[in-house]
């Protein structure tokens, strides 16, 4: 009988990129695998849910959960793993803040279903069929998880102990987080296991930033080729760096792409989008309504841009399922 700490790695509403990031630990993964007993990892291993259900409560040392909570299966598994685990790590942007698919909250469930199964120009659905939670086929009843009315971040459904943002989180922070658990060197609960400051603090382009940025026109990335040492905002390209937590390794910036905000808000801030909006507005050089209008009309879909990764945890998007069921 093994006495190694038990670890579960599970995906909810996720693309699989976070699992890929764990695999990208390469040799470090072998160290992890020899130090722990992985009891659940659907991407890599073949364990069944009932084996988790049979474990005593609190017997899993760490559950690494990525993805958001979008359907009843996600919710059920999140609650099961919470009950069986000592620590839950919200892994990746979707688990921490809802992620890109959280933008679905701007449309509402019914509208999405109608578009996907009825209205989209590529849809041919003469029988007007759409997925049902229960269907009878040949006398057998088949079930599907049902979409929830909203996309939730993990902590809106179950209590979360630690957070590791990133789309996906970088290998150095993943390794650091896992070994911190194994060695018992964790910060206080609810901490984000990433640097506290904004991305601009470590951005190499920051050194060449002028003392004052005046944005006279907003440009999209395909409209301008920004020099690799120039701050995107000076060129009018929207870069979420000022309001986004650093620690990602500046991977986007190094391939000349502005920050989109996947690391979420900096320490002490809840709504990164609102903070960025204030910061960005102060850089726009305009006084009259007309000037503001002319410049801002090139800011396409501000809500989608500012809350690209954080809609479910934004000020107006925030909802909790915890209270409804506990």
């Amino acid at each position, binding site marked *: 009988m093994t006495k190694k700490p038990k670890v579960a790695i599970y995906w909810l509403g996720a693309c699989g990129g976070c699992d890929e990031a764990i695999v990208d630990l390469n040799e470090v993964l072998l160290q992890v695998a020899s130090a722990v007993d992985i009891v659940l990892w659907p991407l890599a291993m073949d364990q069944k849910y009932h084996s988790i259900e049979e474990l005593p409560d609190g017997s899993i040392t760490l559950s690494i959960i990525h993805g958001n909570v979008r359907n009843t299966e996600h919710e059920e598994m999140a609650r099961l793993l919470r009950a069986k685990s000592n620590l839950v790590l919200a892994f990746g942007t979707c688990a921490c803040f809802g992620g890109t698919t959280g933008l679905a909250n701007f449309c509402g469930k019914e509208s999405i279903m109608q578009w996907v199964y009825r209205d989209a120009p590529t849809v041919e659905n003469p029988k007007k069929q759409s997925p049902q939670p229960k269907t009878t086929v040949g006398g057998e009843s088949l079930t599907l998880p049902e979409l929830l009315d909203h996309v939730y971040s993990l902590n809106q459904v179950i209590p979360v102990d630690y957070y590791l943002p990133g789309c996906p989180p970088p290998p150095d922070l993943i390794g650091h987080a896992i070994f911190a658990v194994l060695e018992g060197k964790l910060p206080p609960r609810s901490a984000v296991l990433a640097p506290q400051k904004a991305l601009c603090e470590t951005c190499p382009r920051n050194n060449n930033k002028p003392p004052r940025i005046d944005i006279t026109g907003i440009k999209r990335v395909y409209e301008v080729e920004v020099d690799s040492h120039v701050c995107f905002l000076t060129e009018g390209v929207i870069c979420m760096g000022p309001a986004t937590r650093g620690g990602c390794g500046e991977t986007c910036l190094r391939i000349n792409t502005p920050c989109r905000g996947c690391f979420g808000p900096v320490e002490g801030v809840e*709504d990164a989008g609102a903070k960025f909006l204030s910061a960005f507005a102060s850089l726009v050089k305009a006084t009259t*309504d007309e000037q503001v209008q002319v410049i801002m009309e090139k800011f396409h879909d501000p809500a989608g841009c500012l809350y690209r990764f954080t809609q479910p945890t934004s000020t107006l998007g925030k909802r909790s399922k915890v209270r409804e069921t506990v």
Partner: protein
Amino acid sequence: MQPYEPKIVCFSCCFGWGYLTGRDVLSVRIKNWIPVICSGKLDSTHLLKAFKEGADGVLILGCPDGDCHFQDGNYQTRKKVHLLHKILSSYGIDPRRLRMELGTDPDGDTITKLIENLARELRQLGPIRVDGMQVETTDRADSRG
């Protein structure tokens, strides 16, 4: 049934609005009135939080055009308000619920009138539901891009 009475939060600049009348006097007269040192001091977070906490409308009163005590605080907030209108719309909240007026009224007598003007419009719109669902908004195709 009681007629619907919208809840309005009013942020007003101390240097343009009501500075000759005691703050204690005005705050009795005006419900949910929050004087601020400069309208530019208002962060987007404050304005969104007002809606989150149940406001049906928010009114911002700033200094007149070109006459901000801190040079351009009113212009800074004008830019925020412009973007916030689009943000609110995406959340299904009618942008008319957030209004900014530039001007000056040392006695603060017109503040209640301006609030009533907004309230009249909000009564037409009805109560707000901030739950992430589209309830009163306009063109949804926009957000599909």
